[in-house]
């Protein structure tokens, strides 16, 4: 069954793309031996080169959704590194290209480390400005030729060791190799865990972090990979044109063209940048030759219009348009799916009756605390949101956290999971201290959380959503890039989806689920890696009584399997039936705690909560 899910998920996405790429590759390898037209070969060289760069851009701009308008920086660094190392030190570009890539990676990390913290449009603006800054610096740096530029030494031509030739054909193949490399890298990332994580953090970084994905590390990784590939293209371009200056290799125009290709082709797809480069570069080169110098820019007007159209109509660009045609067949075959699903659900319905456990709380949990909070305080300006809170949650229990709106319950959760930094106090999870928690380190320490609002990844399938919840501690970037989902996670995930009645919907986009199904999915994502402690923020808010009953049933079942729960809930009926123990919070303080019956009779609780 596990094998089935993996191959079904990968196979559905890959096959047509792989066929297309293989066929295209075969044609392109033969082509220069048939067609000798220099103009045509030059155009295809540019298609490959810009295709490779758009592919590289797509890693950070498409998958991770961090829009860079400054990729010409890495292109330029590659070009300059190759040219300077060859011109001044006679170093072969075979080495120079990789040194250039290393420099680009370094620069991308120096830029990315602070800038990837920023809100998305600020990141875009920062890269735009950094592109200009680099260009001005290189325009005034005599070592690299300043505004005069650099000529590459011609005496190395026609030697394979120096990658320079008189004919265009070897360049054609070099660029084709670059495009294959970039496409290969993109395909590997796309097919494995890393691609799913990048698309997840693109949609909701906080939610991804809370599942244990170290989001900033993945963004830096995508940025570095992207910079390295772009830099290699820069070196090859320098060897091709034999003369570089800041205007031809560090121009904002190049940065923008890369973005245009990836956007029109289709961002966050493997095939998109290739299609985009074919379409855009060929159109651009041929309109320029037909219309002559006077017609310069006409193609760009069209691209501008196309991008606006794409933004409004089809965010996946050309790939989206092609898929839309393909989808019509898909839709016909999938028509049966909802029926099948509803039948399954109907079959699953009687289950509550088979589980005749009364709504009364089960046995009191074992004495060992999973969560120990002491003296926790958090102030926002003049409001003391959490005031000197001390309590413990014991292994195996379901603990309710109730209190009026503004009592500080969600702020408490935020302090525990690293979304807020508490002013004072200590938090121990499983016996070890959480000193400066970040969402992903809290997750690694064994804490899961759902949010008050629905936080699932709408553009990912149900299965991909679930797999974002696998164990990320000790996962490592290479493992995530080179491996599919962990077998244990797939087996457990299968069982989990079956028990929630979501298995038949696993290939659906999460956005296609009903609200209640999304709620179930969000809990499943958080419990997949079997955290010691689950924090649920209003799990039954806004769902109908039948579904609320189903959700509480699942919580009880997971609790019986060994997961401890701390649950914020406003629905008193539900929480009193569900929890073994209740904490009552008001004005930032824990005012009372005890078994549900006791809390309901507690004088202060009645006064503050029920207004009596």
């Amino acid at each position: 069954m596990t094998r089935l899910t993996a191959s079904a998920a990968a196979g559905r996405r890959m096959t047509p793309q792989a066929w297309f790429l293989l066929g295209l590759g075969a044609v392109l390898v033969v082509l220069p031996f048939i067609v000798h037209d220099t103009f045509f070969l030059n155009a295809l060289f540019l298609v490959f080169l810009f295709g490779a760069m758009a592919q590289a851009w797509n890693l950070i701009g498409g998958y991770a959704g961090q829009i860079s308008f400054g990729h010409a920086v890495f292109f330029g660094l590659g070009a300059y590194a190759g040219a300077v190392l060859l011109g001044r030190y006679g170093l072969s570009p075979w080495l120079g290209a990789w040194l250039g890539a290393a420099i680009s990676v370094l620069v991308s990390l120096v830029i990315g480390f602070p800038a990837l913290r920023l809100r998305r449009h600020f990141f875009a603006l920062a890269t735009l400005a950094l592109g200009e800054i680099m260009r001005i610096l290189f325009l005034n740096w005599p070592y690299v030729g300043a505004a005069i530029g650099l000529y590459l030494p011609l005496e190395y031509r026609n030697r394979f060791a120096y990658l320079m030739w008189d004919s265009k054909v070897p360049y054609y193949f070099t660029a084709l190799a670059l495009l294959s490399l970039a496409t290969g890298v993109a395909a590997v990332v796309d097919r494995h865990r890393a691609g799913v994580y990048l698309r997840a953090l693109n949609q909701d970084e906080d939610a991804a972090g809370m599942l244990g994905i170290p989001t900033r590390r993945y963004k830096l990784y995508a940025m570095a990979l992207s910079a390295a590939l772009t830099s290699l293209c820069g070196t090859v371009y320098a060897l091709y044109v034999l003369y570089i200056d800041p205007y031809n290799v560090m121009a904002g125009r190049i940065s923008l063209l890369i973005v245009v290709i990836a956007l029109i082709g289709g961002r966050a797809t493997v095939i998109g940048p290739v299609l985009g480069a074919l379409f855009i570069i060929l159109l651009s080169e041929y309109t320029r030759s037909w219309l002559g110098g006077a017609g310069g820019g006409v193609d760009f007007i069209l691209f501008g219009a196309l991008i606006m159209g794409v933004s409004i109509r089809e965010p996946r660009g050309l790939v989206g348009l092609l898929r839309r045609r393909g989808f019509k067949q898909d839709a016909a075959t999938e028509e049966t799916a909802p029926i099948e699903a509803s039948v399954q659900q109907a079959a699953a319905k009687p289950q509550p009756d088979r589980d005749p456990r009364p709504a009364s709380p089960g046995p009191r949990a074992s004495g060992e605390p999973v969560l120990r909070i002491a003296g926790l305080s958090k102030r926002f300006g003049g409001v003391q949101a959490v005031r000197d809170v001390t309590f413990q949650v014991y292994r195996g229990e379901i603990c309710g956290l109730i209190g009026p709106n503004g009592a500080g319950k969600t702020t408490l959760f935020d302090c525990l999971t690293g979304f807020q930094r508490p002013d004072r106090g200590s938090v121990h999870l499983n016996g070890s201290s959480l000193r400066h928690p970040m969402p992903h380190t809290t997750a690694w320490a064994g804490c899961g959380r759902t949010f008050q609002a629905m936080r699932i990844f709408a553009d990912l399938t149900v299965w991909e959503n679930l797999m974002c919840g696998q164990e990320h501690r000790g996962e490592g970037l290479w493992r995530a890039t080179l491996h599919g989902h962990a077998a244990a996670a797939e087996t457990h995930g299968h069982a989990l989806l079956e028990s929630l009645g979501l298995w038949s919907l696993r290939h659906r986009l999460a956005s296609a689920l009903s609200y209640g199904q999304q709620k179930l999915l969000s809990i499943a994502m958080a419990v997949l890696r079997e955290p010691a402690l689950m924090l649920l923020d209003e799990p039954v808010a806004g769902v109908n009584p039948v579904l609320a009953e189903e959700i509480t049933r699942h919580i009880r079942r997971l609790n019986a399997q060994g997961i401890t729960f701390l649950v914020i809930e406003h629905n008193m009926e539900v929480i009193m039936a569900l929890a073994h123990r209740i904490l009552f919070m008001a004005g930032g303080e824990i005012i009372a705690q005890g078994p549900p019956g006791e809390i309901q009779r507690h004088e202060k609780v009645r006064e503050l909560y029920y207004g009596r």
Partner: protein
Amino acid sequence: MGAAVDLDLFLHAALNGLILGLVYALVALGLSFIWGVMDVVNLAHAEYLMLAMYATYWVWTLGRISPGAAIPIVVPLFFVLGWLTYHLLVRRILRAALATQIFATFGLLFFLRYGAFAAFGPNVRGVLEAGPAGSVLLFGVPVATPKLIAAAVSLAAFGGLTLFLRRTKTGRAMQATAQNRDVALGLGIPTERMYALAWGISIASVALAGALLFPFYQVSPTIGDAFLLIAFASVVLGGFGRVDGALVGGICIGLVENVLGTLLLPTFKLLFVFAIFVLMLLVRPEGLIGEPQ
């Protein structure tokens, strides 16, 4: 080189920076305004500045109408252009993902810039005798009259917009829309019309800046590049989404560019602006007078 000469040079640079800064502020105003009212970042903003300068150029070349007299023609024209931009493009991406919004205005930038390339060619155009000639002595420093007029009109525009937002019913409705679109809609405010109006005001104000710049600044299809970053730098420096932020930020950027540029290294004057912009983004993205989010 005496200290007195340096002081003169400094005063001259500072005064020029202040005046240019006021025009930058007017360029940034519309960008910040749209950002504040509807949380949309318009990457094509500076392209409208470029188009307005071309419009002023053609009004002068074809009709011999001076830039000052052209303002009543150019500014309403661009108001309509802004209104159209909202209805044809922006309205359709309002509820889209942030990345989609960025890409849409990026497409608009391409469309307008290369449209100008195709229509007017790549050449730099300018008519230096178009504006009022002469100069005025200010603190013992001669300042060209067109620059002084530009600064004064820019200040007046800021005053006008502030009055509009604070004193008129429409202005208050617009502020309400900015704070919470759905509540405003519930109260019967036509939020669609407010947004369209905001775009009209935004583009009209940048067109005004274009007409004011024209007598002492030459136009080419690519001037949007530098101006976009200058405008963003002003907006981020002052605090995005705020009218007063654009004013403070614009003046700061004008001063940085002129004072640092003149006194230290003229070739690096834009570098200083961009570097301060990036530093500001990293250190205090809410701006000098904005409140942390």
